[in-house]
């Protein structure tokens, strides 16, 4: 497993895509800070050229990170099926377990590094370009990221699962969006009529992340469950659903023939 992970890291370090992803995301975020700073300099009463607003933009947009996890997993997966490269590993006695879990671990390593790099660049640029607001905003941003972390891991694991079991990228992406977005939205609608779906919808990762609220005055997260239960439930439901898709993907991949 360690050798597989090392080889994947070797490949990622030599792939333009892995650098481009970080550069594009960081570039877009920096540009938003640059715009805030420019407008702040030209308009005296502009209220948003401060780090507090910049950070609130970041944590309010965490659902976007959920979707970026799909891109991360796709970049790291490396078109194994269309390149037909996985057959080499299988033929040389690398077990399907090592390939499946090795990829997942590498996706998670890359995602954490990319997220930290992008967030670090964004926070750094905010401090450099904008007026400094209270420290509570950064605390709230960090807490929101910690609560959302299992949901992001779920997004990575589910994407990994479908990329392994469905060979066409189009089919895999459709399935991923179906499970991660369409199913929660349909459950929300059905939840208006049926209590079962109402309860189910509450637990689905997309709803968990999009239902996160923020009290910018008290610098507190507003979650569907009060207090520490809210934090714990995000982790429990996020990790449980992640494990479910990890397992489904692994079982199906073990029976899959490679071309």
């Amino acid at each position, binding site marked *: 497993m360690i050798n597989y992970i090392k080889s994947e890291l070797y490949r990622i370090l030599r792939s333009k895509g892995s650098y481009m992803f970080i550069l594009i995301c960081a570039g877009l975020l920096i540009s938003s800070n640059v715009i805030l700073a420019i407008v702040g300099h030209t308009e005296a009463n502009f209220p948003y050229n401060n780090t507090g607003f910049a950070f609130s933009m970041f944590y309010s947009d965490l659902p976007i990170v959920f979707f970026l996890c799909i891109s991360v997993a796709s970049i790291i997966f490396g078109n194994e099926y269309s390149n037909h*490269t996985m057959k080499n590993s299988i*033929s040389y006695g*690398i077990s399907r377990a090592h390939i499946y879990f090795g990829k997942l671990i590498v996706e998670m390593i890359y995602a954490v590094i990319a997220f930290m790099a992008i967030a670090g660049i964004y926070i750094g640029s905010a401090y450099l370009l904008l007026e400094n607001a209270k420290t509570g905003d950064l605390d709230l941003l960090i807490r929101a990221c910690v609560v959302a972390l299992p949901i992001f891991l779920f997004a990575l694991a589910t994407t990994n699962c479908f990329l392994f079991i469905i060979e066409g990228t189009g089919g895999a992406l459709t399935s991923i969006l179906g499970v991660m977005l369409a199913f929660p939205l349909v459950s929300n609608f059905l939840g208006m009529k049926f209590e079962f779906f109402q309860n189910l919808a509450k637990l689905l990762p997309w709803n968990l992340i999009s239902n996160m609220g923020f009290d910018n005055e008290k610098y507190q997260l507003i979650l569907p469950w009060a207090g520490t239960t809210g934090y714990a439930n995000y982790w429990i439901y996020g990790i449980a659903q992640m494990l479910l898709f990890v397992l489904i993907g692994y079982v199906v991949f073990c029976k899959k023939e490679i071309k």
Partner: protein
Amino acid sequence: MREVILSTKNLTKKYNNTFAVNNINMEVKQGEIYGLVGKNGAGKTTLLRLVSGQAFATEGEVALFDTATPKGLNDGRKRIGSIIETPSFYNNMTAEQNLEYYRIQRGIPGKSCVTEALTEVGLTHAGKKKYKSFSLGMKQRLGLALALMNKPELLLLDEPINGLDPFGIVEIRNLLLRLNQEKNITILISSHILSELSNLVTYYGFIDKGKLVKQISTEELSKECNRYVELKVDKVEAMTALLETKLGCTSYQVTPDHTIRIFEYLDQTSVISQLAVNHGIGLNSIMTKEINLENYFIQLVGGESND
């Protein structure tokens, strides 16, 4: 007795209701170059995919280095080098980077094996060229380099000379012969280009419609592929009796279509025709013929065109 490196027992692979591989029992012994001969779609690639673990058998089993357990097979595959179907690598990486990626993955110590493998297949000139810009011949060479990188005990090669120019074919053939003779690497090679196999293999397996129809050593095959006099007469039994009693000829065979093949008197067909005429046997035709590998194969599997 030489060790059996690869064996299959009642190996069967079915896709829907079609047998891609049908009840194949074969053995590849250490030091052999086993040529798997068959038309396109005969089941050669499927058989190699089953051996390499890319596909799963419907029935039967594969054993590598005398073990058939899943873990044993995976361990065995670490001692194998293979090219199955077309070689496949990461498009945006160079030859060296692709090999280095698999070297790390397979835990092969020392980076020198990458350079050695590239040198062995004549691909050192590829430099910084990305795999996506490689010619088919270069891709085949890189596939072979990957197969050789771990100093394998068994090579599984599925049509490895596809896409190579005539010089490349000779080079690769000589390389395979050298690996077999100097390093005692066992080779299982599939091809439908029979002339190429005839210069290389020591044992043949003929496969058709998923079935292994015949296994034969090169020595046995060369006996069967001799020149012979083909004789068509109206009284086959009387003619064979005459051949034995009058000419002392024992090396002949009668085919199912009542043709006599005589493996002696190859340059004295007039003696045979005279014998027939003198004893009142109607002589329909007499000619000298030769069975080459192509004819042998066509006779074995029938003369249908490739599908």
